[in-house]
């Protein structure tokens, strides 16, 4: 289930659809019955969907100067790690909130007896 979520989110991100982790999170929240499982899965899928392409760029080009530049542009000074943290946080939050929203909505529907 986790792998499927990551793959769906990753493919979307690679195609430029940055919001795909949110959709993958929603899917996980609908499919996985227990929120305690679904929500972390959504977060993890979002994290990896944004982290893997970033890691790929680090391997191919090196992201040090880019990260430092982004930190300066955003007013973070020389804290080059902050753009990385922010980026991964965005991916993670997209997956997490998607799963949470789906779980919360699903809980309103009475379970079949």
């Amino acid at each position, binding site marked *: 289930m986790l792998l499927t979520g990551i793959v769906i989110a990753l493919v979307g991100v690679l195609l430029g659809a940055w919001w795909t982790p949110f959709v993958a999170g929603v899917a996980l929240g609908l499919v996985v019955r227990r929120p305690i499982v679904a929500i972390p899965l959504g977060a993890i899928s979002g994290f990896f969907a944004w982290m893997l392409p970033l890691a790929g760029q680090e391997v*191919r080009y090196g992201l040090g100067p880019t990260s430092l530049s982004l930190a300066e542009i955003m007013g973070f000074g020389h804290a080059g790690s902050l753009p990385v943290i922010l980026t991964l946080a965005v991916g993670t939050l997209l997956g997490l909130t998607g799963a949470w929203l789906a779980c919360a909505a699903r809980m309103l529907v009475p379970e079949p007896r």
Partner: protein
Amino acid sequence: MTLDPAVEAPARKQRAKTDKRRKAPAGSTAIRRLPPRRHLANLAGAIMVSALVLYVSFFGAGPLPALGPGFNPTTGAWTMAADAQVTDRTISVAAFGGGLQQPVKVVLEQDGTAHITASTDHDLFFATGYVHAKFRLFQMDLERRQGEGRISEILGKAALDSDRFELQLGLLRTAWAEWNALAQGDPVRDALTAYSQGVNARIVEAEATNQLDPLFTLQGYKPAAWRPVDSLVIKGDLTQTLNFTDTPLLMAQLNKSLGADLTSEWFPVLPPNQQSPYDPGPYPPATTAPIASMRAVTDAEAQSAAALYQKLAALPSGLIATGGASNNWAVAGAKSVSGGAMMAGDPHLHLTLPAIWFQMTQDSPGFHVSGVSIPGTPGVLIGHNQHIAWSLTDAQNQQTFFYEEKQDAAHPNQYMWNGAWQTFKTVSYDIPVLHGQTQHLTVKLTVHGPVISDRGITTSVWWAGNLPSQDLRVLFHIGQASNFKEFRDALREWYSPTHNFVYADDRGNIGLISAGYFPLVAKGSQPWLPMPGTGEYDVTGTIPYDNIPQAYDPPSNILWSANQRQVTKDYPYYIGTAANFFDPGYRANEIHRVLSQPGKLSANDMMALQTDTRDFLASEIVPVLVQSLAGEKLNGKESAALNLLKSWDYRMETSSPAASVWAYFWPWYMAETFDPWWKSRAVPVDRVESGSATATTSLDDTLGQDLETWTLNDPANRAFTAPGIGSRTAQDAQRAAFHKVIAQMARDLGAAPSSWSYGRVHQRTLENLAQVSGLNYGPRAERGDGNTPLAAGGYPSTHGPSWRMVVDWGAHTFQGIYPGGQSENPASTWYTDRVETWWQGQLKPMLTADEATNAGDARTWTLQP
């Protein structure tokens, strides 16, 4: 909430127990079907947090950009890492809109210098546009927005004043007029069209490959397609920066507060000090009247001038020319070590990252030029071809005139001109504003030019930069010239900004010509003040081309310009006052001093002179100061500082404490002399930048010439006896200033004068063009000041030599450097890779395309149709 597993499981058990104990009453089925309140709360929380995350991801919040598209690892700002990699490539431009006729080869040197070789002129300009956009698209977009009044669209209402002013002034109107004047088939029209196609090919490619500059991505907008008129607007930007002045407004306020007599005495038409004009005459007879004395300004005029001056003063820096500084000179073959003519040039501009310049060579059937271009425009502005080399400095003559339009309540929307009421023409604009309502602007136009102020007296402006001109055609012809006649003939059509074009060719000849309009106003006019717009004082023409300042192969074998007045007091035409804003002449004097020394000169001498730090003014004043302090009772620090000055060589080196003493002394001496006048006469114009102990302004440039002259030749001038001060001489003012300066320096820099090295006082910063201070270079301790050939005025200095070039036709060497790098991408090694070489005063060889191909580590692009 159900996020906590430790809470969730017990809660479920408790709910089950409660449900069993509770016996549902009849008729309560509907109530039991309602979801538990905590589920609703959970959903509400999920919706709110999701909405927040999605909103910030889609739209951003506060200082945060839209985080989703902005930081998407595959399409967001992170792609600048991939963009920074430049490799060998074959690019099929057909996929990006096409427009190329034949394959084009682009060789990129190790430092990114581009060498474009094309089979047709069309393809040359197409490739130039593509290469410019590849490395400088954000800069190009920002600069066209600046001139077209579209900054608010990306930055919001904070930029509205700038946008309104630009649309009032009319760079866009002028650009359209220039474009519409180009007939089908005109080579300039073709070049602009091909250039635009090249830029647009790169825009399409960058969007397709997600490699737009991160500042586009983070600000959430995409560049619009490039139009030929955009290139013409960027040319207008530079003209405005160099030549649109507000001096008459300043003079009107000084006239009213200081009085007409002191204003005309302290801000004269002709400079009071000794300068080194490059064209000493003889001159042809004048066709205009001699300069009249200054008239008194009325209250209404002064108030209107003050209102407009404040409006202009509030605009971002760079829109109004506030002073110029550039050097160029040439040495004839008879005086060079190599036997060939030599030329050196270093235009001084705002030093930005990315730089204003992009270095390249252009080779096609019609062009073989090497030098620097301005991204957004297709030609090389400064450089050389196979036979000639050229560079330029700003000529500083007055090209901006303000007119007070006469109006009457009985004639609304009309103004009086030539004895009849004329109706204002109007043109309207919509200014889109980020996160705000689109603003509507109506600009009134008179025969003189646009109305730029309706507060008080309606004021319009005549500005030579608003006259449509085909400067690009001039540049193309310069690039194709092979001798001085062709060079000079090409410049005949150059209107604005007026530049001192220096020239050296492969046959040992040198020349210098101040090409551009020198507007003439009617007899009796006082163009250094706002003038009545009723017709009697209109601009009537320009100085004939043959009569403008120029020289060719002078007997001295040297020519030089450094923004000084080009001619002597015998020149029969009015070309501007000392305050508008000819340089005080110290750089020119120093350059002239070095070049005119006996012996022959080499390219290395040219390079050394470009980084000369000898302050000519200091060399004149410090000996007088030392004399004034002889016999004066001094404390230990003052004696030590005086000893530093006594042994000083007048060089503003970072290690020199004496240079710091001088850097402090001169502004304090100025203050000692002029501040009492400013205070007693309540002069509304600041003489010194606020918050700075050492900075001087362009106003001080003029007053400094006075003070220099009085100190050397008229120490009892009445200026030293200011109201409330009592009778004083220059020596008295120097002594008073010296005591205050040393006390202040001890507070700022410590008790030991030997530790007051100039590098502690004076730094230079290369400023990021998008005003991201973290992407600046510096501040870093820097030598030089505003008076030295190595121009470094300001604390910190943000202006200076934007490009240094030395050509030696005898040795056939061509060298150049600019501070910064070819790429605007801060993650690229080509963002600042040239800075250190430039900082050390070194130059780099300007290679040909073939030499670049054979040099190590070159990358080659092939653009395919």
